[in-house]
């Protein structure tokens, strides 16, 4: 087996890394793990957690309304207003253990309906479109002290999504089908890249994640094959390996696409139900693979915006505004739905069309970063989420 450690050491990175304080441990004596799952394409929050108790629900959702709790294939009862989609049975079992929070009618500050701008604002943490070129989770790494060759965060993908891009060094990893390049070639590449910062830093970052992957024999066999659900499970397995590796990252970001259900979205069965089933299986894989570490973990499942309250002309839903987010994990103070429910009557809606946002996504993120990763309020308000005074941290999201 090839060890990347020597190469890192040859580059002087190992020595630098070990001479620095071990990030979160030294800083906070905490080894909390945080996983961000981004559902790209605008997942329908009214299907993820349906407000079956809202008197207007059945009328406005028409043929996309899900059966009440207790009915065959019915919603999984969260409380007297909300029910979880029946495909999220695993998440529901965690809800029963008080380890799941549903945050509803939640949105980023973005109020238009472009996927791409919506994802930008969700990920850069700005108060509006186009204001920041780096991501809030990268900025949050500053007080955590990760460094080149000793990254605190990993993108479970080849490329780094915006939320993790920025000045703080992060790594990325995805399964490969190709043989490793030999150490001699890698050393020479490192020399050749020495004067080119773009290449030099990326190679060191990649070698770090390869080093961790090499130490886990099962990861060499991982393949990015199969359907989306199977691939998500593979990535969840790998995420657990990274988050439990000694000196590994403590924060991971995963992405899952395919939530843009403009047509034939389905109810208990169908396109969206299948996606949710795949997500549920992936989250349960992560829980199982993290094993004891699950108790120190918070997973946030978020999407760029929600979908129209009304069904469109093609049994689907178009781009909307507020949606639902899921927080789960052993560190979550759960078993509740957090919602200042705006209602579904025509005048209750945002622009008479979408679920009205009453929770700010940044408040949720701030609550997690503050209480789970011990990031100071000053950092949260000044650098991580600038201009977010209107979005104070949510309290009591994390077990005390």
């Amino acid at each position, binding site marked *: 087996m090839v060890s990347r450690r020597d190469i890192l050491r040859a580059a002087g990175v190992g020595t630098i890394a070990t001479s620095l304080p071990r990030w979160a441990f030294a800083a906070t004596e905490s080894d909390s793990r945080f996983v961000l799952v981004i559902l790209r394409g605008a997942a329908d929050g009214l299907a993820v957690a349906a407000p079956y108790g809202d008197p207007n629900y059945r009328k406005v959702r028409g043929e996309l309304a899900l059966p009440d709790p207790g009915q065959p294939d019915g919603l999984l009862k969260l409380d007297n207003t909300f029910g979880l989609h029946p495909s999220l049975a695993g998440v529901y079992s965690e809800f029963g253990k008080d380890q799941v929070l549903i945050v509803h009618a939640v949105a980023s500050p973005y109020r*238009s309906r472009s996927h791409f701008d919506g994802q930008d604002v969700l990920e850069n943490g700005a108060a509006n479109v186009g204001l920041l070129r780096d991501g809030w989770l990268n900025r949050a790494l500053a007080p955590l002290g990760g460094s080149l060759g000793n990254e605190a965060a990993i993108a479970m993908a080849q490329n780094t999504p915006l939320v993790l891009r920025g000045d703080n060094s992060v790594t*990325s990893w995805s399964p490969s089908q190709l043989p490793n390049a030999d150490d001699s070639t890698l050393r*020479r590449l490192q020399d050749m890249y020495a004067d080119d910062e773009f290449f030099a830093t990326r*190679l060191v970052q990649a070698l770090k994640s390869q080093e961790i992957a090499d130490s886990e024999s099962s990861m060499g066999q991982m393949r990015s094959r199969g359907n989306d659900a199977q691939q998500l499970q593979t990535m969840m397995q790998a995420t657990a390996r990274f988050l439990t590796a000694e000196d590994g990252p403590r924060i991971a970001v995963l992405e899952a696409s395919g939530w843009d259900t403009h047509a034939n979205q389905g109810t208990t069965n169908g396109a969206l139900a299948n996606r949710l089933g795949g997500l549920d299986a992936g989250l349960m894989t992560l829980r199982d693979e993290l094993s004891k570490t699950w108790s120190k973990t918070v997973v946030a499942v978020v999407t760029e915006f929600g979908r129209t309250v009304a069904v469109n002309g093609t049994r689907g839903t178009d*781009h909307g505004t507020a949606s639902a987010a899921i927080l789960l994990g052993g560190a979550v103070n759960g078993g509740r739905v957090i919602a200042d429910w705006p209602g579904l009557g025509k005048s209750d809606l945002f622009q008479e069309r979408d679920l009205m946002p009453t929770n700010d996504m940044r408040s949720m993120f701030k609550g997690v970063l503050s209480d789970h990763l011990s990031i100071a309020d000053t950092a949260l308000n000044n650098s991580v989420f600038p201009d977010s005074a209107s979005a104070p941290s949510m309290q009591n999201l994390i077990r005390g």
Partner: protein
Amino acid sequence: MKIDSAIAANRFGLGARPGDLKTIDRNPTSWLLDQLQGPSRQPAELKGLPATADVLLEVQELRREQREMRQLADGEPAPDFVNTYGRTVRGHYTEQTQVRYRLAASTEHPFHERLVHFWSNHFAVSADKQPLSAIAGLYENEAIRPNITGTFADLLIACEQHPAMITYLDNQRSIGPTSTLGRRANRAQRDREIGLNENLAREILELHTLGVDGGYTQEDVTTFAKVITGWSIGGAGDTGRFAEGDPGTFEFRETIHEPGTHTILGKRYSQNGMDQGIAALRDLAVHPSTARFVATKLARHFVADEPSQSLLDQLVETYLESGGELTRVYTALIRADEAWLEPHSKYKSPHDFVISTFRAFDHVPENTRFVVGALDLMGQTPFRPGSPAGWPDTAEHWGGADALYKRIEWSNTVSRVVGSRVNPVDLGDAVLGPTFSAETRKAISRAENDVQGMTLLLASPDFQRR
């Protein structure tokens, strides 16, 4: 050897083949401009491809069989069907990607070909939605290729009327609520509103023309969706609902078109039928926001991730003056000094990297499975960007650590296949010319063997940038 020759071949073209730089060196600007002359090219490689209509009919026939079999088998799709359907669709996809990448590896008009790929990405469809994987390559050749040297309006209309775009963004399903059929259907089933699907209308405004900051509102989106109701595909389709029109080709269906005068961006459109949508598209095509959006994307693709404001202003002016004559805009781009200042301003996408590797080896792959596999591995599966926004075009998107590692692994794998048949220093000279840096050359010349040397060349910053 002029540095401009390397820029022309590697940044404007798809990568130099050995010998190319010498040819281009006579006059790099003319070499590029000459590729825009005459009618848009239909290379011989494309002759064997079927038409979209034929493929759609074949696929629909298979689906019809599936429905019948489902009825027989109580709803479960028969395993035989899944095999046949999958095999058919995959067969078309393979044939189309084969043609695309063989042509890219061998073309004598690589600037023209890069423009085809650029516009195919601007008007992206994605093969992760069926039946797009069977027709995405045909769409590129039928709607994009013949129109890239004409006006943007003609290109736009050709794309929005192609069955690939219509199905990708669901427009055949969008029904005017007060159209003949819409009213009838809504009377019949009270509980369910038959109506609009905004998908295509929104993406035309956001991704194809004005850009997201281009000054349109949600109301413009909804109204524009009404204007293009009826833009559909002929034949019975999957649902068997309407049968008029030539199967598998664009069909305007009056019976689902939302009647009346509609106002978009403050302008009233009182035309009837399909002409209403055409008029709106023609106005959108020459809107200043569209000019800026298109100019920015072109400059970002060909010059730098962050092109200067002055270059953009220049391109916008040309665009608006010429009414969106694309060849005029390309010419302005090529004639701009800024386009030639920095030889390595762009980090190659995986698509660029793989094609330029094959061109450097002057090798046209017989079977392109290896090419598709490589692109898949590096995160840019052909015709599968996964969203109507297409693939991103900047280093920050492609510059992940693991992505670089995949490029290194692939460089190493390719170099092992090529073995010691080519001397890597000579190849660097031949394809990078004056942009082959002394550091890279030194690293390669000190390599343990040619396989390692070739890996270093392919993974070098000089070759990874364009």
